C-alpha cells in the first residue's frame, strides 16, 4: 500500500480565476510545509487533498486512492481547517465523540482513544468544558485532537499556529512533529518560523504556481552568500530600502542594524551572514517576480 | 443626519432589498389568490388583516440579520455609533417601506371599488404589521435565532385563526373583520414594547 501523496499536473479554477497552475508534487511520510503568501493557493491545494473541492484538472492520489473517490480518501485523511470551530454548546468530550462517530469509529474505539488524545493535547482536565468557553490555544489543540482521532495516514493542517501565543506555538509544533513520525503531515503557513522549526521538505506557492520544492536546506542554499548585515544611520535606511530587500532591522539608538539581500558585496561595512529560511524565502519571492535582489549598485 | 441616511442606504441595498422583493411577490399574488375588487367592509378587512399584514413579519423580523455572525457583531459593537441607533434606523426604514406598501395596496383596493373607511383600516392594518413584526423582532433579539423570530408571529397567527378571540382577547389581531378597533390599541402598545424590548435585548447580548 502506497504511503505517498502524488499530485500530477493539477490545475484548479474558481470561475475564471486560476487558483493553481500545473502543480506537480510528491509528498512522503513526515512533515511537509506549504509556504506562500495569502491567496497563493495553499488552502485550495489542501482542500483538494481533503476532498473539500473537486479538482478541475490533473491527477491527485492520496496513499494510492484517487481524490475523486471521496469517501475512501476521507477514511485516511484528517483535516484541521484554518478556523477550527465546533457547536458552541457541546462539551469537549461530546465534540470529540460526535466527530468520532462521523469518522466511523466504534464506541469502544472512541472510549479508548478520546481520553488518550485529550491527554496528549493537554486537555484532560477540560473534558466537561463547553467549546465556547475554550481559549484560542485550547480550541486549536482540540482541533488537532479531533483531526487525528481516527488515526489517519494523512493529516492536513491549514495555518496551524495563527493566533497562538509563542509558548502555545512551540508546543503545537512539537505536537505536530510527534504526530508526523508515522504519517504524512501537511501544514500550510505564511509564518516562516513554523517551517524552519518543523519541516524537512517544503513547497513554495506563488499565485498558484509552485516556485520551489525540495528541502529546507536547499532553499537556504539558494540565498547563501547573498545575505548581508550592516549598521547604518537612520538617514541611510531609506536609500538602502529602495535598492535592497531588507529582511530584518533593529534600531540601536541613532543607528539601525539591518539585514538585507544582495547579489554581490554591496559596500565595505556590510558583513556576509549565514542565510536563514526567512532570508531564502524573501529571496525566492523576489526572484520569482523577475526582480533581481540587487537593483543597482549602492554608493 | 447624513450618517443615519448612510446606514439606511446600506440597509436597503444589502439587507432590505431581498425582503422587499418577497413582499412584492406576496402582495403581487393577492389578486390571484383572492378578490381585491368590489369587496365589502368585512371582506376588505379580511384581506388586509389576514393577508397583507403578514408582510410585517417579513420586513421587521430580520432587522438584526446583518450582524448575525459573532465576529461582525463584535466589530460593529466596537465602533463609535451605538448598535441601538443602527437597529433603530433600520427599523424606521423598514417600517416606512411597510407603510408605502400598505398605502399602495389600500389605494389599489379603493380604486377597485372596495367599500371601507380608509384611514381606520390603514392604521388598523399597520398596527397589526408592527405587532406581528415586533413579535418576531423581539424573539429574534431574545433567543439570538432568526428562525425562532419567524416562528413566534407565525404561531400567533395560526393560534388567532384557530381559537379566535377566545384566548387572545384584547390581542386578537383580526378585530376589524368584526368591526372593532379597540384591540388595535392593545396591539399597538404591545408592538411598540416588543420593538423597544427586542432592540434593547439585542444590544445587551455580547
Amino acid at each position: 500500500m502506497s504511503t505517498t501523496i502524488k499530485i500530477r499536473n493539477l490545475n484548479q479554477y474558481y470561475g475564471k480565476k486560476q487558483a493553481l497552475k500545473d502543480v506537480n508534487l510528491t509528498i512522503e511520510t513526515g512533515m511537509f510545509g506549504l509556504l506562500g503568501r495569502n491567496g497563493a493557493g495553499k488552502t485550495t491545494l489542501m482542500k483538494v487533498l481533503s476532498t473539500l473541492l473537486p479538482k478541475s484538472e490533473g491527477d491527485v492520489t492520496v496513499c494510492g486512492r484517487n481524490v475523486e473517490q471521496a469517501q475512501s480518501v476521507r477514511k485516511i485523511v484528517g483535516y484541521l481547517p484554518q478556523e477550527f470551530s465546533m457547536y458552541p454548546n457541546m462539551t469537549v468530550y461530546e465534540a470529540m465523540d460526535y466527530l468520532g462517530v462521523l469518522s466511523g469509529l466504534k464506541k469502544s474505539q472512541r472510549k479508548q482513544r478520546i481520553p488518550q488524545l485529550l491527554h496528549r493535547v493537554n486537555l484532560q482536565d477540560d473534558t466537561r468544558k463547553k467549546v465556547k468557553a475554550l481559549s484560542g490555544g485550547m480550541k486549536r489543540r482540540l482541533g488537532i485532537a479531533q483531526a487525528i482521532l481516527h488515526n489517519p495516514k494523512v493529516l492536513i493542517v491549514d495555518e496551524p499556529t495563527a493566533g497562538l501565543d509563542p509558548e502555545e506555538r512551540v508546543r503545537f509544533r512539537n505536537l505536530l512533529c510527534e504526530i508526523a513520525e508515522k504519517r504524512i503531515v501537511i501544514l500550510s503557513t505564511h509564518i516562516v518560523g513554523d517551517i524552519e522549526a518543523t519541516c524537512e521538505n517544503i513547497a513554495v506557492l506563488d499565485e498558484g504556481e509552485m516556485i520551489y520544492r525540495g528541502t529546507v536546506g536547499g532553499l537556504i542554499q539558494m540565498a547563501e552568500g547573498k545575505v548581508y548585515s550592516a549598521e547604518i544611520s537612520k538617514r541611510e535606511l531609506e536609500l538602502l530600502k529602495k535598492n535592497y530587500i531588507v529582511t530584518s532591522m533593529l534600531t540601536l539608538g541613532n543607528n539601525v542594524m539591518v539585514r538585507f539581500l544582495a547579489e554581490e558585496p554591496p559596500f565595505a561595512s556590510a558583513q556576509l551572514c549565514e542565510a536563514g529560511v526567512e532570508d531564502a524565502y524573501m529571496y525566492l519571492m523576489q526572484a520569482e517576480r523577475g526582480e533581481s535582489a540587487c537593483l543597482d549598485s549602492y554608493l | 443626519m447624513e450618517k443615519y441616511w448612510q446606514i439606511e442606504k446600506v440597509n436597503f441595498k444589502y439587507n432590505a432589498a431581498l425582503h422587499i422583493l418577497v413582499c412584492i411577490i406576496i402582495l403581487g399574488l393577492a389578486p390571484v389568490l383572492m378578490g381585491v375588487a368590489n369587496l365589502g367592509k368585512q371582506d376588505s378587512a379580511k384581506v388586509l388583516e389576514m393577508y397583507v399584514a403578514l408582510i410585517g413579519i417579513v420586513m421587521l423580523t430580520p432587522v438584526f440579520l446583518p450582524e448575525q455572525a459573532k465576529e461582525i457583531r463584535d466589530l460593529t459593537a466596537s465602533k463609535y455609533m451605538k448598535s441601538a441607533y443602527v437597529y433603530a434606523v433600520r427599523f424606521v426604514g423598514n417600517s416606512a417601506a411597510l407603510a408605502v406598501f400598505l398605502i399602495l395596496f389600500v389605494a389599489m383596493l379603493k380604486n377597485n371599488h372596495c367599500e371601507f373607511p380608509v384611514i381606520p383600516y390603514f392604521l388598523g392594518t399597520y398596527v397589526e404589521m408592527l405587532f406581528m413584526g415586533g413579535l418576531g423582532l423581539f424573539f429574534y433579539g431574545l433567543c439570538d435565532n432568526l428562525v425562532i423570530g419567524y416562528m413566534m408571529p407565525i404561531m400567533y397567527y395560526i393560534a388567532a385563526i384557530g381559537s379566535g378571540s377566545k384566548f387572545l382577547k384584547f390581542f386578537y389581531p383580526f378585530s376589524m373583520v368584526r368591526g372593532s378597533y379597540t384591540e388595535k390599541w392593545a396591539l399597538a402598545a404591545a408592538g411598540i414594547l416588543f420593538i423597544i424590548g427586542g432592540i434593547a435585548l439585542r444590544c445587551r447580548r455580547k
Partner: protein
Amino acid sequence: MFGQLFIKEIRQTVKSLIYWLVVLVLVLDFSSQLGKLEIMPEPKKGQEEYGVHYSKDKDVIIESTLGALLEEYYRESYSTYPIGFYKSVTLSDMETRKLEEIIKEATGLDGREEVDRAIDDWYAGQEQDSEQMVMAGSMKYKPTDELSYDKFVELMEEADDILGGGSKYGAAKRKQNAVVPMTYEDALEEYQALIKKDKLSGGYARLFSDYMVIFLGIVPVFLAVTRILRDRRAQVQELIYTRKSSSIVIVGSRFLAMLVMLLIPVLVISVIPLAQCIEYGSTAGVTVDFFAFVKYCFGWLVPTIMTALAVGMFLTELTDTALAVLVQGAWWFVSVFSSMQDIRGGMYGWNLIPRHNTELNWSEYHDGFSQLMANRIFYVALALVLVALTIVIYSQKRKGRMQIRGKILANRESKL
C-alpha cells in the same frame, strides 16, 4: 454507525431551544382545542335540534346546486373562495356563453330570458307559501329528466373551471349546497357509527389529528431549518464534510431523529384523550380501540411531518438561508385556507393538511378513505424524494460543488 449518529442527533435536538418551543406549541394547541374534551353522549329522542349535516340525497344536491347556479347567473356575479378568501368573479361574454350551454344542458333553460322567468316564478312561489321557507334565499331547481348524476358532476366541474375554482359548483361546495337539518334518526346513526365503526377512540383520534396536523404542517420546518443552519453558524461544515460517514448516513440520521422527536410529544399528548375514551368506554360499556391514536398519528400525521421536515432540509441545504420558512409558510397558508370551506372531513383531496374537524362523520371518512390513503402515500413519497435530493446536494457540497456562498460562484458573479 447510523444508530449512533441518530442518538447523537436526538441529543442535539433535546438540547435545542427551538425543540422545546415546538413542544410548547403542540401542548398549547392541544390544551386550547381539546383540553376540555367532552365525549359525545348518545342522542335522545325529543331534543330540540340535532345539528345539521349535508344531505347525500343526489336529487337534493342537484336541485340546490342548480338553483345556486341560476341565481348567480341571474345576478351576473359569482362568489368564489379559491383559497378561502372571498373573490367575486365576473365572466367575459365567451365564458358566459359557455356557462349558458351548461345551464341549458342541465336545466333545459335556454338563454337569459328563460332563466329570468324561472327566477321570477321561484320567488313568486316562495312568497305564496312563505311559511315553509326553510332556507331563505337558496333557490332550488329541478334538472331535465335526462340529466344523470355523473353528467351533472361533469357539468358542474366544467362550470367551476370556468370560474377559476373555489366556486359553489366545485366538489366541496356542491356538498354544502345540500345542507339539511339532522333528524333524530340521522343523529343516532352517526353516533352508532362512532361507537361501532370507530370504536369511539377512532373518532376522537381523527379529531385529535385534525387539530395537530394544522400545526404539524409548519412547525417541523422551523426545527429542520435551525438544525441545518446550526452547522453554518458553528462553522463546522468543513469539519463534518471531511469525515468518513456517507452523506446518506449524515442527512438520514438527522431527518429520522427530528421525525422521531416530533412524533414523541404527539404520541405522549394523545394518551390524554385516549384515557378519556377508555374511561367513558368502561362506564358506557363500549369497546374502545386502544391503538386508534397510534394508528392515526402514523397514518395521518407522519406524512405531513415528513414533508415539512424534508422541505426544510432541502431548501436550507440548497440555499443556506431560511427560505424554507417562507415556502412552507406559503404552502401552509394555501393548504389551510383552501380547505377552510369544508373542514368536516371527507374532502381530503391532495391537501398537505387534511382536515376532519369532528369526531363524527365516519361515513364520509369511509367514503374518502382511498383518496386519503393515496394522499398520504403521495406525501411520504414526496418527502423521501426531497430527502434524497438533500443527500445529493449535501454530497455535492462536500466535494465543493453547489456552494452558493462559496468562492466559485463569488468569482463568477463578479465577472457578470
